[in-house]
């Protein structure tokens, strides 16, 4: 029971972190048709910037400044990069963001070195928030939940209740009509791209000390975020939210489950012996293949529902 509750909470924290990344990605994708491969790189930049700023000004200014800087980086990428390659088609845009991944990866390594950074949870939040069944739940995780829930609320209000959100939503489906009505669609694009990068940066700030701030963090996070976006359905924020939470839960629960398929077969009377490929596949405990599960889930959903959980369109 204790394991279930703690895993549930941790899964929620991780899922919200995933959602912060994936929501920006899916917004950018559904509006501009651009799959931003550099999204996880921006997440990494956010974490590094937050580390650097928190060294000088402290954690809470970093929480504000680092995402804003990431947003500005997003503006620069959109205005000087993506717009130039836009007329070469979607594949050129994809390729452009892949090139960015290489450059950002290496620039980060060049600036901060190859070793993990000592980016730690601020002392103010470094205490156990409450105790369930003898296990502590860190206050920082509660803070992460708070920040991501606040961000979720802000994004929702911005998209559904304001005029800007109305224009953004209209540009998702009918960009040329929005342009004909006198709105500056490229500026809307830039805003959305910057907003997505800002969210990624924010995720980096609060995720950098939850996980570790090191040069491999973008590579670790990137594929999972893509899985979330595909699983939830391209262009669907609600689907993206559900998928993030599911992925977060799967990842955290997988770590604590020490059963394998063979254990399920044992009561039926099937016992496995020997050392072959088949027995290895069947006897490997779930905790060891936790990293594999998101991809298996993705393949499964693509098999049964190619457009994802709540996706509305094929691409």
């Amino acid at each position: 029971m204790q394991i279930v509750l703690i895993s549930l909470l941790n899964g929620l924290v991780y899922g919200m972190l995933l959602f912060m990344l994936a929501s920006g990605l899916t917004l950018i994708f559904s509006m501009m048709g651009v799959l931003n491969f550099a999204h996880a790189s921006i997440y990494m930049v956010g974490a590094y910037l937050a580390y650097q700023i928190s060294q000088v000004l402290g954690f809470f200014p970093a929480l504000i400044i680092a995402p804003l800087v990431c947003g500005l980086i997003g503006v620069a990428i959109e205005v000087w990069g993506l717009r130039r390659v836009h007329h070469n088609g979607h594949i050129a845009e994809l390729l452009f963001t892949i090139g960015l991944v290489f450059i950002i990866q290496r620039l980060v390594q060049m600036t901060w070195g190859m070793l993990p950074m000592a980016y730690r949870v601020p002392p103010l939040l470094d205490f156990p928030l409450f105790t369930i069944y003898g296990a502590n739940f860190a206050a920082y995780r509660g803070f992460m939940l708070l920040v991501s829930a606040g961000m979720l609320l802000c994004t929702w209000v911005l998209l559904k209740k304001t005029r800007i959100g109305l224009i953004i939503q209209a540009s998702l489906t009918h960009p040329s009509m929005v342009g004909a009505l006198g709105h500056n669609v490229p500026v809307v694009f830039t805003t959305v791209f910057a907003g997505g990068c800002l969210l990624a940066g924010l995720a980096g700030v609060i995720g950098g000390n939850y996980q570790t701030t090191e040069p491999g963090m973008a590579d670790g996070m990137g594929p999972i975020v893509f899985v979330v976006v595909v699983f939830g359905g391209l262009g669907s924020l609600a689907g993206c939210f559900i998928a993030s939470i599911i992925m977060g839960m799967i990842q955290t629960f997988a770590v604590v489950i020490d059963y394998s398929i063979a254990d399920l077969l044992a009561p039926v009377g099937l016992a496995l012996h020997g050392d072959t490929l088949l027995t290895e596949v069947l006897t490997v405990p779930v905790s060891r293949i936790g990293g594999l599960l998101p991809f298996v889930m993705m393949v499964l959903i693509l098999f049964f529902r190619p457009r994802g959980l709540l996706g509305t369109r094929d691409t």
Partner: protein
Amino acid sequence: MSASRAASRWWPTIVVVLVAIALPWIFYDWAHHRGSGFMISMFSQMGMMVILALSYNMLLGQAGLFSLCHATFFGIGGYSMVHFLNAAGDGDLPVPMELMPLLAGLTGLALAIVFGAMATKQRATAFAMITLGIGELVSTAALMFHHFFGGEGGVSTNRMIDHSLFGLNYASGIQVYYLILAWTAISTGLMYFLTQTPLGRMANAARDNFERAQFIGYDPRMVRFIQFALSGFFAGIGGGLYAITYEIVTFDALAAPLSANALLMAYIGGVTVFAGPILGAILITLLQSGVSLLSNSWLVYVGVLFIAMVIFAPTGLAGIIHAHGPIRRSGRLGRLLVPYLRLVIPSLALVLGFVGLVELLSFLTIGAAQGRKLVLFGGPIDIKATMPWAISAGCLIVGMIWLRFEAASFHRVWDGLTAELKSRR
């Protein structure tokens, strides 16, 4: 007329093959009677990469499919090859060495059929994301299942299986090089042949206009699927050759960086021309063996080169060469010589300034951690001094501004020439 035209079409191919055959002997150490190991392994690597890049271009260039899991099939070919070789070494698999890559190719084909059935239902961006997931699925699995993949350490083998069509034992690198060359030539020929078949043509059609391809009665999904499966087959052959050369296959052979590499090679070489990826594979392998030995910042250069290609030359190197075709045929190539020479100096300044800055920056952190001294352009450089930084930044800025002017004047000459050619027609 037609004979001479055919000859003029085929002579580049013949020259390339002859050069490839002669290559090991150019770098042969006659004094000690042995080949240059570094050179031969680099040329062998080139052969595999040519197959990888060409088979990748069957998707990206010919079918418009942007795949991110191409290394998966390459890697599976490699892993299965190791197991085939081990079986052959134990005497369980009576297949001569020369035909082994075919088995690896078939493994690649089998896996590509399974994954292709899932991935090719979609196209464009969704396809890219699905293939990304597939690639990650397999490479994560490779670290988890030790039986087939050997975990982190990979699986190793011995290529001397004593079963050959020509009585060779493949102990030396040169014999392996010729095996690779033969398979590269065969695969290249087959892939070229495929572009001429109805399948290749329909792949182009489905890339250019999805609806019309459907309209004339073909199922674009089927076309995509077959194209995907076949490209997996060729990638598997490449992976098989990889296993033969290195006798060990690790996680690197199917992980995402190699998929990205396939993309880089195909794109920088040029996806619109069949031979483009060959050019890209040779260039990138050269750069990789050369630059990565000299510099820590290899990835930055590749990234910048790649982005520059995407922005300024989306048709790749082969596309640029191709664009010169009409001018060359009209005999006016000489008039481009001076404008080209004028581009050289500012470009050099730009490149030098950029390289200088990147190297200085990388030595501030990584180099310092490794305790090495920066040696740049032939001499040791003190990274703490202002001078090198100022010179590099100056070169970069001056080169950039100057290049803008020169590029504009080059464009004028180029446009003038093409307009002349048009008016003559």
